[in-house]
């Protein structure tokens, strides 16, 4: 056992050693960078927007387009998608016509109020944050399919999953312990 431990230690020492004359990659210099740089791979704000509105073949692009540029690049496509999902769309509960609604959605940011209740929708406040218990999908379904009075397409405006399977905590980190 002792012998094994010693071998293990020598291995770790080796793995930590800096190789001075052999490089992995002649295309790239391997010095430690002064700045640690990252390239974006995924991006998200409002729930399920990418899943519902972004077509196959454009998800990588959507995920790497800064929000300030997303509207210009995706608003028309979102509009087409909305009308494909719900050909009878006129306006929704927020009074937004298709172009205005998808124009908002295509810029995928989440507004968070610092001085009012934070909620996706609580009957009064709209899109002022997203709480763990917010039934965000039902809200989105109502806005997509419910028409101006939320009464259209009753079979499509509620997935009838209204709450999480575990209750949340009032203290940090708030999310329920894992299953």
């Amino acid at each position: 056992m002792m012998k094994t431990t010693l071998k293990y230690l020598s291995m770790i020492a080796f793995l930590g050693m800096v190789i001075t004359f052999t490089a992995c990659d002649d295309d790239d210099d391997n010095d430690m960078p002064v700045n640690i740089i990252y390239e974006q791979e995924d991006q998200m704000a409002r729930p399920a927007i990418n899943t519902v509105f972004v077509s196959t073949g454009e998800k990588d692009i959507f995920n790497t387009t800064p929000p300030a540029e997303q509207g210009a690049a995706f608003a028309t496509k979102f509009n087409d998608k909305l009308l494909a999902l719900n050909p009878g769309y006129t306006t929704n509960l927020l009074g937004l016509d298709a172009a205005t609604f998808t124009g908002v959605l295509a810029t995928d940011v989440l507004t968070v109020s610092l001085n009012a209740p934070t909620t996706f929708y609580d009957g009064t406040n709209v899109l002022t944050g997203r709480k763990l218990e917010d039934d965000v999908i039902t809200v989105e379904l109502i806005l997509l399919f419910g028409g101006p009075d939320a009464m259209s397409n009753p079979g499509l405006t509620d997935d009838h999953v209204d709450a999480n399977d575990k209750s949340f905590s009032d203290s940090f980190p708030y999310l329920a312990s894992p299953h």
Partner: protein
Amino acid sequence: MKITSLLMIAVLLSACSDRGQSVTDFKDYESYLSLSQAVSSGPVNEELKFWSDRLKKNNDDASLIKLGALYSELFKETGLAEHIVLSDSLYKEAQKRNAEGLVEIYQALAANAISQHKFQDAKEYAEKALSLKDKKSASLLLLADVSLEIGDYARANQILRQFKNKRSFAYLIRKAKVKDHEGMLDSAIVCMEQAYHRVRGNKALSQWALSNLADMYGHAGRIEDSYAVYLNVLRNHPSDDYSLKGIAWIALSHDKKIKDAKRIVNTLAARNRMPELHLILAEIAHLEGNTLEKANQLKKFRSLASVPAYRPMYMKYLALLEAEEFNNASAAVSMAVEEINNRSTPQSFDLLAWGYYHQNKFKEAFEVATKHVENQTFEPEAFYHLGMIYHANGNHEKGDQYLKEALKCRFELGPSTTAKIAAAIESL
């Protein structure tokens, strides 16, 4: 650059030389031999139950995809072909339910096809995934993997050159493969060590990197480091049969502890269907002078590896056996041709040349070997074959040089091939 090359040569020269001392100690790894298959696949089996139950309840794509991934993982643990076949069918069922096809599923099918050595299928799936545009960098990595397998090094290199994250694990492990192929083992080791450092916090990936490093240290002549790393992997993952197999090889080929090697390999053969274990048992029987047992083990290998699900994975081994052990060089040649169609690598052409050599078609062997093998792979097996082919064609100087080069890798070649080469140098 010149100094670097000289140093590299010095390292390579010392790398392949033998070191006398015994490295393995049975007590170090004894406990890993008592595991049952049920224990080793425990976590995967529990997860399988979770997603099978969910599939029954929800009949959803997500469960199908999860189950596909788990059976693919289970295949790597058990070596049972039925697991990878089931994985494929689960993925395909999920794919049927998606009109456009999910890029993740094409990627998973490509990876499965690589595992099964169905490289043309793998290429098709990877190209299909790439054409869907999403998750593009993963699709490109898969294409790089396939390209390396089928010998399209230009394409693999082109993909890697354009890959932006040159410090990422995904890049470094592939760069290691390229360097290894180019015969730059020391660079390959540096790449793999850097890759390991990138994923130290990830148990599965760091173990993967370490077991590959252990192989490479062995090839660099650093047998003690290799052994220590295999043990380290086992400490974190006691059911890692790949590492036990690596230790068995050190015990057999380096330490000449035939009894210890046999105990490991017999244990592995009882709990894992890797057919190649029977090749090692045949080698052991040969060293013990047990001709009957050797023949038995070779037949066992042939019958296990010849079933359709395994055959592409073991084509190379099957062809070598036909030529060297079963006196059926024409079968070896036709298998080599199949292998070239699947992957036109220097190693596949080496099989063809070796088949011709055993048919006494020395001129054909020479043509294939000089055109497609020589200077395109630096592996000891190819050097052994090149040496014999040069001798057979009357160039004894080059023949000897190749054989002597091959002999530097006696650890990799194993005792009986080493003896064959030594005898050839004496007699030719």
